[in-house]
């Protein structure tokens, strides 16, 4: 079995083929940016992009995403290159506290900005309502999405 992740092909060994995509990414392939928060699709910490859409990788199986382009947070920018505008906005607004949910927040924000380049507060709230944060970084998340949206404009 082969998956397309961050523009590269990855072989998935037989023992991993019935595992949730989240475990395949984290344990089999070492892409640990997506996190386990609930295992039920309730918290968004495991969010990745599947053909550009934000999806919960804890609820997907490898066979669900065969042939799809999967993007994880590791694939947003390459080593040595500039960060993705959303990643940079997260640093500029100093969003993370514990940081555990932030990869999922960032991936949901990337998906939002892809379909709606200049979202309002209500759009951001709606798009990221399923990404939980216990530290209380919500205000900075909103500000960072706005900043990324502005930065992306020519």
């Amino acid at each position, binding site marked *: 079995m082969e998956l397309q992740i961050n523009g590269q092909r990855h072989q998935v060994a037989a*023992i*991993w083929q*019935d*595992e*949730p995509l989240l*475990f395949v990414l*984290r*344990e089999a392939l*070492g*892409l*640990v*940016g*997506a*996190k*386990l*928060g*609930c*295992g*039920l699709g*309730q*918290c968004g*910490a495991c969010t990745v992009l599947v053909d550009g859409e934000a999806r919960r990788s804890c609820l997907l199986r490898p066979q669900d995403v065969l042939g799809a382009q999967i993007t*994880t*947070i*590791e694939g*947003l*920018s390459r080593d040595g290159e500039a*960060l993705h505008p959303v*990643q940079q906005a*997260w*640093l500029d607004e*100093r969003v*993370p*506290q*514990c*940081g*555990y*949910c*932030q*990869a999922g927040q*960032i991936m949901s924000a990337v998906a939002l900005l892809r379909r709606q380049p200049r979202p309002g507060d209500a759009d*951001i*709230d*709606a798009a*990221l*309502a*399923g*990404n*939980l*944060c*216990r*530290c*209380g*970084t*919500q*205000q*900075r*998340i*909103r500000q960072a999405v706005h900043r990324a949206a502005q930065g992306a404009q020519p």
Partner: protein
Amino acid sequence: MKRRGFLGLAAGGLTIAIALPGCSLLPVLPRRPLPTAEDAMSWLRHEQGRYTLYLPRAEMGQNMLTALKQVACEELGVAWAGVQVRMPDTRSIRRVKATVGSDSIREFALPLAQACATLRDALALGQTQGLLAAEPRPVESLRSFAGRGRHVGRSAPLEQGPAIVCGAPLYAADVRLPGMVYGRVLRAPVSPELASRVKTLREDAARAVPGFVALLRDPGLRLGGSEGVGIVARTPGALARIEAALAIEWQVEGGFEAADVEALINVNTRLAKGALAHRLRDDAAGAQTPWDIDLLLQVPLAAHGALEPRAAVAQWSQPEGLLRLWVGSQDIFYQRDAVARQLGLDETQVSVQACRIGGAFGARMLCTVEMEAAVLARRLGGAVKVQWSRAQELQQGFHRPPSQHRIRARLHEGRVQQWWHAFATSHILFTNAAMPRWMQTVSSFVGDAGAARNAQLPYRVPQQRIEFDLARLPVFTGPWRGLGAGPNAFAVETAWDLLADKAGADPLAFRLAHIDDPRLSAVLGQAARLSRWGHVLPGAAGRLRARGLACGIYKGLSYAATVAEVEVDASSGEWRVLGLSCVHDCGHIINPDQVRAQCEGNLVWGLAMVLSDGLPVGSSAVAAASFAEAPIPRLPQVPPLAVELIDSTQAPTGAGETAMVCAAAAIANALAAATGCRVTRLPVLAGDMLAAMQAQATTRL
């Protein structure tokens, strides 16, 4: 595997009380040494022009890596890139106490600055080799305590920020080792406070599951009263299939329902029997005139809700006789001691690496998943990763204890003359998740400072009686952000608002009239200005809007005041917070941006207390298995937060829990101001709000 290790394991089991002399009965207790400049030398290295700082604290979102690096850079007089900060293991630094109580800047910044100053001066004199003896230096001589500097008093890039936004491995669950397998410890589906053990299991069926590695029964897997059955698999997903195949039937002793927990903390029942066991103030009882207020407030059991379910990786290396652990713990030295004792190892045979914690809030104090991973790795002789499920977090972890508060008070000429606060709750520091019943009984002579936190008034009242009872509950309770401060300050500040109302006074003026501490008056006054207190809010049909405020002093050290603005739908009782304003004073500020971040966090926690924090109990267990039953605030529920900081040359105190003393009460007081009626049970559900409004309307008829 060493024979001695097995004997040690057996000794930790069921027969311990009979088999061993008294001293071994004591659980491993965390030690709490105050850090000195001499200790701080062990946090620092200098090699070939490069400085390394081993973080003497847990990193759990307070971004202490960043703040202590600022202190080090300032004191050493070097650029931001000149110091590399690393997470420590138990071999790289001297023992430090657990990361708790907003103590990291208050207690660690000074010795770190002193050690850095010693190193700076030695290098200036040409010494580049050997160990240095630290000199305690006066605060006045330290650059990092002299107000704003090159690094201190300014925002700084978040250390590990780039790693977080790029998804680099930082957390215990991110650790991957060659040959690593995955473990889980199965327990009866009841509170681990109850005794439970395996009745039957189907081992052959489990062994037939693809990916099965091992089934391990070991006394070291016990948690509280619950026997643990270890299962190990080649992939994490196989664990659920093995669990299903095992089909364990459990034998459980005893049981309880929600009403049993409520009965144990029923403050009125306890008051009917006389004085409560622990007294913080015991002034003579006052005149037998009616009370001006008589209020019963109820705060439920609540989860920490950190996004990271706890995880640990353990690796036993036979040739070295070394157990390595990667943990997300508030006390790596306690982990080492607990694991060494259980496995019969010397402390030099256990090395514990600190990893960034995906939210702790008090929950990462004990040795739980770490012990599970250590025992499984030791028995298998390899590397094992264990990460709890969300359900395990809720059902096997400890929680904020529920509490009931009865507050009575009398006014005299517009001032509070007599105050009587009686409350019943459960242990926090002497948690039942770590302490056997007999030990809690011994501890009852000293009460529980955690449960009592912020029960003292920040106001001048001539006669006060403040007393409480502690009840061991059938569910695990323990430290939760701010310990007792959240519930106690909520109760105090709610009652105080009601007293202002009875006195016919403005809540702000009424508070100011009872405050002696100028720093508390200052944050309160500034919060009022920030929120335009007294300024009329625009109304809308069917929507009730109002502001509420609250203030307090956390641990007698840090000051905060909050104003909340809320809107209530008169027809449904649905409510939301429109804005929260907070003014915060924690003395000298190292990193204003991160003090603000902690303050924002506390405001959202206060919101959560009123909005949703509350764990259901039923069928002898915490009756919650996911965020559906134990929700935390979502993005649309979090209003704009305005935070102002008072910076000063006063000694730095702490920010991690400060605004817990006022955020929840400010919101509850705003709801009461908007509707004219008070919901006395947290969280404030729309249905309860509506019922209270309807009851009040009926009374008026």
